[in-house]
């Protein structure tokens, strides 16, 4: 029997019991529609989370100089000053996946402007620092190339600092003192608000690395070019682990650390945040997968049930078709096609409802919705496979009927 005839016969059979066919496909309709709406909302939410997380700088690694050990007393990370500018330059030169890199030192000082003063922390930074940390300028042009190369006394201040020192006044172009050194304000950062641990991210000022080294950092006994930390921005979050490994290898090489010896530096990625993101994604996918799976199983069982009833009801028809020359394969294909038509029809209607539902949700609610056509395609494929899977047993049963018994069947 040709495919067209099989389809025609299946459509004919389903039309004969159209209410039953429609009710049977209802399970698949509801399942597929629910899946599409939930996946759309889920993906929209996920996209928002991703945006938020990448705002925190999730694609980054931080290298700190190692924890010291002076006569058995371990000092904190960064106390040893084992990192240098040259390490940063070498990483940039040798690891292409690194998009941004900035070496830096940090400290705290009292800031003074006119009669106002404020205690805050400063960072001596290199140009990429702002990109790595997603800092944007609200006012001014920020630090320029010549500020870095000339170790100029320019400063970019955070919103909290600006509020406390300047209040209503215009900060840009004003002169402030950091400790005893006068600096010119060349930029105000756009506020970021609270950080992941509740700290005020805007309570900070940034100056060129070289300036910080010469003017703010107290000690003179450090090796030339020493820094406390190197921040790395990686192009793609997936490369983080790989880049971390590469950085570690390169740093051990540069620092001539013998195999087995302890590193004099440590590399940290924002592991908690990335892990949280991964876990969120996974839980979300699992939940949605479970919903999809359960609804399709329930729908599929409904189809199987009805197909079994249908086979029993039509035993004589099956016997007759066999007698006039239908082979087991013909019978099996016919019932399989019926099951697949039910589930495909349900899938198509469910998809339509799901897409409309998603659009309605995005229009009338605050929930972020992201409709992905791959999900729609997947839903349709799933619905057809459901029919195929759950229709197989009834179809097989029909095809294995003994034509003599089937013809003799009463009822």
């Amino acid at each position, binding site marked *: *029997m*040709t495919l067209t*005839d099989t389809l025609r*016969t299946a459509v*004919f059979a389903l039309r*004969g019991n159209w209410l039953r066919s429609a009710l049977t496909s209802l399970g698949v309709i509801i399942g597929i529609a629910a899946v599409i709406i939930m996946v759309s909302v889920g993906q929209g939410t996920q996209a928002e989370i991703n945006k938020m997380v990448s705002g925190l700088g999730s694609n980054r690694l931080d290298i700190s100089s190692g924890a010291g050990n002076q006569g058995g007393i371990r000092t904190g990370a960064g106390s040893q000053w084992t990192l240098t500018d040259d390490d940063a330059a070498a990483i940039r030169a040798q690891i292409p996946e690194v998009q941004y890199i900035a070496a830096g030192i940090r400290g705290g000082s009292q800031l003074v402007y006119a009669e106002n003063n404020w205690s805050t922390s400063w960072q001596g930074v290199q140009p990429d620092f702002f990109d790595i940390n997603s800092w944007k300028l609200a006012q001014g042009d920020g630090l320029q190339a010549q500020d870095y190369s000339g170790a100029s006394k320019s400063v970019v201040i955070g919103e909290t600092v600006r509020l406390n020192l300047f209040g209503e006044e215009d900060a840009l172009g004003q002169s402030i003192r950091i400790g005893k050194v006068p600096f010119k304000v060349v930029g105000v950062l756009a506020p970021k608000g609270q950080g992941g641990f509740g700290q005020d991210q805007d309570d900070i000022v940034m100056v060129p690395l070289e300036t910080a080294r010469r003017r703010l950092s107290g000690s003179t006994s450090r090796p030339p070019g020493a820094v406390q930390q190197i921040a790395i921005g990686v192009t793609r979050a997936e490369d983080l682990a790989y880049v971390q490994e590469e950085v570690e290898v390169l740093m051990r090489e540069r620092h001539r650390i013998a195999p087995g010896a302890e590193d004099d530096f440590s590399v940290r990625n924002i592991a908690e945040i990335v892990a949280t993101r991964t876990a969120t994604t996974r839980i979300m996918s699992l939940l949605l997968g479970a919903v999809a799976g359960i609804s399709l199983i329930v729908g599929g069982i409904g189809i199987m049930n009805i197909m079994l009833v249908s086979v029993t009801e039509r035993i*004589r*028809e099956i*016997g*007759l*078709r*066999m*007698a*006039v*020359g*239908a*082979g*087991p*394969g*013909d019978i099996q294909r016919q019932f399989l096609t019926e099951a697949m038509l039910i589930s495909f029809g349900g899938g198509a209607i469910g998809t339509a409802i799901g897409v409309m539902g998603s659009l309605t949700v995005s229009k009338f609610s605050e929930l972020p919705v992201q409709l992905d056509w791959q999900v729609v395609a997947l839903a349709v494929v799933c619905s057809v496979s459901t029919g195929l899977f759950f229709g197989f047993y009834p179809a097989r049963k029909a095809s294995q009927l003994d*034509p*003599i018994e089937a*013809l003799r069947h009463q009822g």
Partner: protein
Amino acid sequence: MSTHYVIETKALSKIYHPGTQAEVVALDKVDLKIAAGEFIAITGASGSGKSTLMNLIGCLDKPSSGTYLCDGIDVSTLDREALAKLRLEKLGFVFQGFNLLSRMDALHNVMMPLAYANQPISVRESLAREALEAVGLKDRGTHFPGELSGGQQQRVAIARALINKPPIILADEPTGALDSRTGEEILVLFQRLKQEGHTIILITHDQQVADRADRICVMRDGKLFESGVPA
């Protein structure tokens, strides 16, 4: 020129539940030859084995032993798919209960077997119209079985049996569900089909019906006896 036999059985036997206490020898070494163009009746009381013989001849069942050549093809070697193909090409069935599909009109009932022969739909329709015309139901194509009398329904079923132009028509109690007058019409139709060259095998328990055939065989306890040309 030797006679062409459409049916040729040698020591054909069918044993149900062999080797158990419920063993039944339904068919016991039947030798039967039916030439092309014959109109033969097989009679017998119920339980005599005539249904078993019909199922075997109709390629709906396989023998326990012996051979059966259906239009020259040895059936014992065939699987279910191949048997179905053989039924499609060689056999037309007419049943006591007509076995029409009530949701299809007469024309579509007649066309149905051709779908399994992969005939294009236009060919099917014209062949079905021809077949309906041959059984005298030219104007009844769009009628559903429920709208037709018993005799008309059986003629639709005969048209369906004829549509593949099979060498063998196998009719199982075709008049059993009809009153005697309508049954007579059907028998006349069979005689006419015989004149046109069809081979007709009629299974019946009714001696009067069997008498209309050219040749009568009687089944008794699984054995086949030739009773020759009816008196």
